[in-house]
């Protein structure tokens, strides 16, 4: 899926442009989108919508992806054995703290690990957001996740917008700005964006 997405990016913008061009297709629509620069690490993801899923959370409750519609959503695939994932989890928590009360939700999806290992990990490093268990890799496979960590950013309609393979400091101001640009119009911080003419 993301190989195709990469091809699409190259076709439309050229590889160099991807690193520098303003956020256009990653926003809700040209007429209403603010002009925000995407951090180079985040790639535009404009392919088909990903498969919905139902997964258990750390407490054994079934969680539905669709229930998070209405908020910008980060779906973050990780594992506790993955070294970069550990430091990235701390930055996701900083993002969660910074955006408290904003229309942003974070779903951390652990891939193919023993429940007790994941629970032990979050007992030592608690987070405010939801942690889900993809025990048999079914969801990560259907989302074409081939490397950890991988994170997808969906808009409030759960439409695909951005993705990154590899770790990222989610508390960086430019990353936060890119996420805020996807908020429903009423929630966008005006002072940080410039409306397009």
């Amino acid at each position, binding site marked *: 899926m993301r190989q195709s997405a990469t091809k699409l990016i190259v076709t439309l913008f050229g590889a160099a442009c991807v690193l520098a061009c303003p956020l256009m297709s990653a926003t809700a629509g040209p007429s209403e989108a603010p002009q925000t620069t995407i951090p180079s690490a985040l790639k535009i993801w404009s392919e088909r919508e990903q498969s919905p899923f139902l997964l258990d959370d750390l407490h054994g409750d079934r969680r539905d992806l669709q229930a998070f519609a209405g908020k910008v959503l980060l779906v973050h695939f990780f594992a506790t*054995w993955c*070294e970069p994932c550990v430091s990235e989890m701390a930055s996701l928590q900083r993002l969660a703290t910074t955006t408290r009360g904003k229309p942003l939700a974070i779903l951390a999806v652990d891939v193919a690990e*023993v429940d007790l*290992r994941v629970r032990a990990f979050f007992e030592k490093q608690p987070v405010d957001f939801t942690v889900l268990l993809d*025990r048999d*890799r079914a969801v990560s496979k259907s989302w074409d996740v081939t490397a950890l960590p991988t994170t997808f950013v969906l808009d409030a309609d759960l439409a695909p917008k951005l993705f990154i393979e*590899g770790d990222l400091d989610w508390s960086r101001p430019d990353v936060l700005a890119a996420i805020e640009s996807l908020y429903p119009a009423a929630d966008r911080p005006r002072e940080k964006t410039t409306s397009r003419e």
Partner: protein
Amino acid sequence: MQRREFLKGTAFLSLAAALPGSAWAEVAFAPKPGAWRVVDLVTNITIEKPDGKMQAWLPLPSVAESEWIRNGETTWTGNTVSATRVRDPKYGAEILHVTWKEGEAAPVLEVTSRVEIRDRAIDLSKPGKVAPLSDVERKLNLEGTALIPVDGIVKQTSDKIVAAVDAKSDVEKARAIYDWVVENTVRVAATRGCGIGDVAAMLKTGNLGGKCADLNALYVGLTRAAGVPARDLYGIRVIPSQFGYKSLGAGSANVTKAQHCRAEVFLEGFGWVPTDPADVRKVMLEEPPTNLAINDPKVIAARKTLFGAWEGNWIAYNTAHDVALPGSTHPRLGFLMYPQAERASLLLDCHDPDNFKYALTAKEVKAS
């Protein structure tokens, strides 16, 4: 980084070729089939904080190859209410599945397996008459697994490796891939257990670090993708190396953390040929004084030997992938090399000694 490592490895290889004969002779790593050694491998499990339904699964030595491993009797004691030897239908891996009654205050189990092992060495310059693999065996050892696909980036990488040296025969292909894995991967001490073995992710990210379950799985995947049957053998080191390699043998009778997987490739005229590129990287990282260069005589000797030979100081459990634990709802495991147990229907973390206590000891006994 990959390319840099590859170039570095190549440069070192050239340098190694120019070393005087005396440098090569410094290390004699020459396993040869000889006397059988008899080992009792004992596994003890204790389920702490017992709760609800409790069961455990232990891999039993179930690779039977008359040239180098003979499995003897397995016995067990404990307070289980059931103990059943189960065989994985696809790979033949044998598993001891035990259950305890709910409310058992101190669930314990001790399993002892006697195994006979000896060195292996195949002279790849002298092909002989060896029965080919059956169609079923050939298919099994060429196909992909959940974590070791043989298409996509694995196939592309394999094709590049083979083409780069214009390898034509299966021996040449298997050797080229062995050299590539040795030169391009790295052993990472921080990897939990023996690694995951997610071969496609390794190639896609370019992170070719890990331990034996990663590095030898990469070898097996690339070799299968080249059309040459190969397999991982999941097992455990049980006695020290007789050739002075501290890193390639059990450090003591306590082998709780000595799990190790090796690999084999099936070559016409030779049969199953032992190989272990992951152990070459282990020698580089761990053999005193540690962090050896690829042209260190100890590394050169290990690299030369571990394509075609290995030391009989290790017991193979099985060659299985995607293993279902009978009686458990947990998804299939990538491989079964560690004891597994459930408490209150939740699988325990086999790499968390604080919460899942087990111990393995190995003792060499005199052959009767």
